[in-house]
């Protein structure tokens, strides 16, 4: 796989991406994913298989889904539960019940992504719509080649003015 980094006049996703992101594997335990998210304050982490192919993301939304009752987060579930008086201990009980399960259980497998060659503006528009870090995936091999976060973009834009 050869990744071109674009040019100054035609920057692409690869120009602004962070090429060595922290990743999870589908078989990693949920407790590992939770520890990473909490420690590094990531909103979400990419999940890749042993060959580095992008599988999905595991993030704070997964985490929230795990601590909420299934009846609330499932499709056609309850819209609101103002009558429930769960405590933090109850939330922890739900998390504990799944912490040894693999992250694949809660991973989102369909999500927006860009290729290394996606033009800069299109990449930023996708980032704006996604409102979270964006995986950069090689369309031929399906391998994860980087991640673009708001901070990566911010740094690059500020640096361009220096």
């Amino acid at each position, binding site marked *: 796989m050869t990744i071109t980094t674009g040019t100054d006049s035609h920057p692409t996703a690869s120009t602004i991406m962070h090429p060595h992101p922290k990743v999870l594997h589908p078989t990693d335990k949920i407790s590992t994913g939770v520890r990473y998210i909490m420690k590094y304050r990531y909103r979400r982490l990419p999940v890749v298989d042993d060959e580095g192919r992008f599988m999905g993301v595991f993030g704070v939304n997964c985490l929230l889904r795990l601590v909420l009752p299934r009846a609330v987060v499932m499709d*056609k*579930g309850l819209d609101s539960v103002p009558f429930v008086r769960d405590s933090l201990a109850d939330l922890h009980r739900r998390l504990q019940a799944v912490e040894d399960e693999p992250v694949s259980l809660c991973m989102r497998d369909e999500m927006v992504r860009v290729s290394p060659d996606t033009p800069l503006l299109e990449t930023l528009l996708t980032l704006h719509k996604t409102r979270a870090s964006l995986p950069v995936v090689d369309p031929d091999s399906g391998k994860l080649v980087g991640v673009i976060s708001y901070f990566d973009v911010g740094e690059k834009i500020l640096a361009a003015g220096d």
Partner: protein
Amino acid sequence: MGHTTELMDIVFGLDPQWYAGTVFVVSYLLIMSDRINRAIIAMTAAGLMVLGGVLTQEAAIEGVDFNTIGLLTGMMIIVAITRQSGVFQFLAIWSAKLVKGHPWGILVMLSMVTAVLSALLDNVTTVLLIAPVTLLITDSLDVEPYPYLFAEIFAANIGGAATLIGDPPNIMIGTAVGLSFNDFLFNLGPVVAVLLPAMMIPIYLIWGRKLVASKEARQRVMDYNAVDAITDKRLLWQSMLVLALVMTGFILAHDIHQEPATIAMFGAALLLLISSLPRSPGEQSKQLEYIFSKVEWITIFFFVGLFMIVYGVEKTGLLELLAGEMMAMTGGDPGLTTISIIWTSAVASALIDNIPFVATMIPIIQNMEAVMGGPEALMPLWWALALGSCLGGNGSLVGASANLIVAGFAERAGHPILFLRFMLMAFPLMLGSIAISTLYIYLRYL
């Protein structure tokens, strides 16, 4: 009809009975295969009945039972508005707290709530409202949701059998024969009242006695504040008022000379009107769009197409032939014919959609009137068809739409209901309920 007969002679140069029969059988096979949406199949087959010359467009429209369509649509609108008040969640939580969070008590109470709601609303709506709350309660109790969902499926199908509006087969039979809400309640209510507790016995023996929840888990349920489930008190009172008026209308329908569809649709219009009053025109449109999106249009269009298909087949005289064959098999004996109908309907409804089955059986039974000795003599047959088709739905996961809805919830909640596991328990239980119903019909009508 004369015009239709002329047209029938020129059905692509084919014998009309063969043509209509083939369209009918192929469409039913396709519906059973679940490969194409049933509404699409019904609409296509209805179109073929008209294009093939079996029916004119006027005759096809004449075949649609708009009383069934209006009743279904009206009730769907009323429920769509009412559910926004949170009253159904309130009922489920209130009932769970009434038994102090005891797991078996909750199973019984949720089943009772499901049965009562199923009798007053349609089954699918009822389980859509109750299954998610059940999953929430079982999560708090830290118990397996399977026995609860199983019992609710049974309660929905049994409860729905008690009234005219409880289950689509009853709506179809009621409107075709001119039976009132009270007719269903007085004739089927008693057996339903026996069936519900009777079904709880095996459920208790298999699961109920093993259901245990810790003190902390029960406390979690007791900590629920049922009143907080009511999210819109104004809408709650408006909905309750309209629901009470609609139910009174159903009970007095014969005395006030109104059809159930008129009562349901007017109730829907009234509730839409009073719930929309405080809103701006723009908000009213948005709310109306939302409420109309909650009407199950797939079911409605399925019914429209189905009525046309069956009417087409009926017009060719095919169903009269089938009725004759059936009478020949039972020797025209009222008892034997009634018992054959309840058991055939039950087994058929367990395996295929009971709506097309009942749509076909209605004209077949109507064609037996002369041999059986008038409309009064047909009454046991109608009750047999209603009980067989409603209760038969309990026989397998595909027996009723409500079953599939519950199975869908269970799967999404991570507790899938497997087809065979369900059927191994449900089919014998369903046969038990049919045996009790047969005894009831025999003692009361034969």
